[in-house]
């Protein structure tokens, strides 16, 4: 009997941890405050990586040198847990003054009343007019207030192998999704461990499917809500959507590694980096990674602008993140000062070091951005009628739910458990219902 009680107790304690995992709310570290007249700001980053944190620390040291009396303490949680950690700190109402706000988190954070409204401060700041139109636009939330200033932009471009494209008999990189399918299928040769396209079937695989659909509905897309066409329907219900998804999934069938059903970001980048795949649709931070590749040399690859659809247009689903201030901060004035500093000249250093599209107007003329793999971004910027900048509804509270659901369904299509028609029906029904509230 004693043994049984002990075992039951052990089982109970072990299983209690399961609910504890879900139930652990958050406490938080102490808040930044004043010490001896000095202000200490607590700054928390989200998309942490060691190299980036070093760049940030150098910029913060410059800020401290220029602003005696203000110290900044940088907190760098691991990326996977960072947003949850930030949420816990914001919920607790202390421990954070300046934070990294992403387009994915600004909606929920603002909705919960956790972010300081910087609108008045930013309007008084002369540096705001030096930012690109895109940066100014994305700084404004849907309610017209400014909760963060972007530090840079992520945007898709097509990484491609110049040598393999030439070898396959093509004069240049593909410009459309159809051309991509044609070139990738011709390059594909599994017997030589060579594949056409680094397909994203795993986490966030839905993003490229949506990019293809948006290109196909380029003529009718609602640029302020890129999941809608101008008639108010979802893009998934548009007549062009079927051809888009069929072409896109043909890329998997005819031109991609079979195991790419499970490929996420690391596998895609590795596939291009080690020379086994010819095309990769990715954000600019990959430029730095591929530049350091030991398998392919810099003259073997470059980037091309985003692929267009039959409309002759491509929709660039811009993703961004930036710096914001916690509403509960007791040092809001100093925190805003730091945000303004990081959004000035420091932003160009930060963008260059982290392979981001910069926010300063002057940075676009920098040789760093006008040559090599970055040139395609300049091309896209110079042709705004072809490469439409669109806003995806990434700030809605159900975005993560959508991402999980749509990723699962993309894999269902890839393993033959769902048709592309049913995929589109399901996505259309999901968004239509959500918009109805």
């Amino acid at each position, binding site marked *: 009997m004693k*043994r*049984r009680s002990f*075992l*039951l107790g*052990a*089982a*109970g*304690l*072990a*299983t*209690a*941890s*399961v*609910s*504890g*995992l*879900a*139930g*652990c*709310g958050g406490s938080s570290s102490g808040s930044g405050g004043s010490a001896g007249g000095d202000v200490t700001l607590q700054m928390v980053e989200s998309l942490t990586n060691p190299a980036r944190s070093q760049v940030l620390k150098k910029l913060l040291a410059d800020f401290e040198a220029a602003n005696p009396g203000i110290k900044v303490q940088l907190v760098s949680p691991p990326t996977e847990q960072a947003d*949850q950690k930030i*949420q816990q700190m914001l*919920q607790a109402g202390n421990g954070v003054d300046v934070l990294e706000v992403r387009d994915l988190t600004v*909606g*929920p954070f603002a*909705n*919960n*009343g956790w972010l300081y409204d910087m609108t008045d401060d930013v309007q008084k700041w002369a540096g705001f007019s030096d930012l690109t139109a895109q940066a100014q636009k994305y700084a404004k939330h849907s309610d017209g207030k400014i909760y963060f200033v972007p530090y840079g932009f992520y945007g898709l471009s097509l990484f491609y192998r110049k040598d393999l494209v030439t070898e396959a008999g093509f004069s240049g990189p593909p410009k459309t999704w159809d051309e991509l399918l044609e070139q990738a299928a011709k390059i594909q040769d*599994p017997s030589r*461990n060579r*594949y056409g396209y680094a397909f994203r*079937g*795993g*986490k966030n695989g839905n993003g490229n499917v949506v990019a293809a659909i948006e290109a196909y509905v380029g003529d009718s897309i609602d640029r302020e809500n890129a999941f809608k066409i101008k008639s108010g329907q979802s893009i998934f219900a548009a007549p062009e959507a079927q051809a888009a998804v069929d072409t896109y999934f043909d890329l998997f069938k005819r031109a991609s*590694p*079979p*195991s*790419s*059903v*499970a490929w*996420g970001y690391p*596998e895609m980048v*590795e*596939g291009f980096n*080690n020379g*086994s795949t010819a095309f990769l649709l990715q954000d600019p931070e990959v430029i730095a990674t591929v530049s350091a590749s030991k398998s392919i040399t810099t003259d073997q690859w470059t980037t091309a602008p985003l692929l267009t659809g039959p409309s002759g247009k491509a929709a660039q689903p811009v993703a961004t993140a930036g710096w914001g201030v916690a509403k509960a901060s007791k040092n809001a004035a100093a925190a805003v000062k730091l945000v303004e500093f990081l959004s000035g000249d420091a932003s160009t250093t930060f963008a260059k070091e982290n392979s981001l599209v910069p926010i300063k107007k002057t940075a676009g003329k920098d040789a760093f951005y006008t040559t090599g793999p970055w040139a395609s971004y300049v091309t896209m910027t110079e042709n705004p009628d072809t490469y439409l900048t669109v806003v995806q509804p990434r700030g809605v*509270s*159900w975005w*993560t*739910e959508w991402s*999980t659901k749509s*990723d*699962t*369904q993309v*894999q*269902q299509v*890839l*393993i033959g*458990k769902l048709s592309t028609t049913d995929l589109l029906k399901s996505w259309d029904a999901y968004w239509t219902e959500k918009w109805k509230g």
Partner: protein
Amino acid sequence: MAVLDRAPRGSRPLVRGSHAPPSGSRRRPFTVRRGLGLLAFLTPALVFVLVFTYYPLLRGSQMAFRQWNLFDLRNTPWVGLANFRTLLANPTFYAVLEHSAVWVVGSIVPQLLIGFGLALLLRRRFRFRGVYQALVFFPWAVSGFLIGILFRWMFNGEFGVVNDLLMRAGLIETNVAWLADPRLAMFSVVVANVWYGVTFFAIMILAALQSVPDELLEAGALDGAGKVRTLFFIVIPFIRTTLLLTVLLRIIWVFNFPEIIYGMTGGGPAEQTHIVTSWMITYTQQGDYGLASALGLIVVGVLVLFTSFYLLALRERDAR
């Protein structure tokens, strides 16, 4: 560990009745003062368990009955059993339970058999036994999530070492997309978990084996028992309690062990390798702590039920 030096608690006595307390042993009378004294000693441990185990458990439990989305904390009404109904109406819930059963059985049976074999080998004295033991026990020191990521690359269809080795051995002619096919993906995560969990069984069983008295083995040898008979009729019955306890604990742990799956497949392809706890992580990532907590409570219920049946079955067997 004390278990190294003597028979584990609850082991069958060598001589029937040898566990009986000496007759006429004196017990100190229970007084209020003595009770308060005992309580004072117990309090730190009780407070620790209450604060770090039962408080989060209760917090999690109350979320299960509310709409609790981290992205909308201004709106957290009580919703009764709605979260449970949502889960039970979702076909994925039943698929995930089935995957959990495959994951637990598929992992624990090979872990037990291989772990037992390793423990038997490591029990013998030979040169560098300590080094071998350290090598065998090493995986237990590595994080499950890291192991998931390592095996994800090992099982990668194009760049993975598994395909490379199989091809060099002439066992396959073309690459196998291990993590792209639902059945192969489940097989792959189970292989990773077997590799990881063998160590625990080896440690526990080795400790139990070392508690088997040499006299008992010598007596068996004198009676003419061969190695197989010694194993099945002397050693295993002697360590039976440790074995059963270890299996029970492992079942609970493996059921609650999403790290390898999370790192290796993320529950894919198309949720075909999700177990209950890895599926729960997706809800926490979505900020839906209401559903995640409801799922957590269901897991507690399932495991308590299972443990009760397991122990009842053992008691029945003992009674027979």
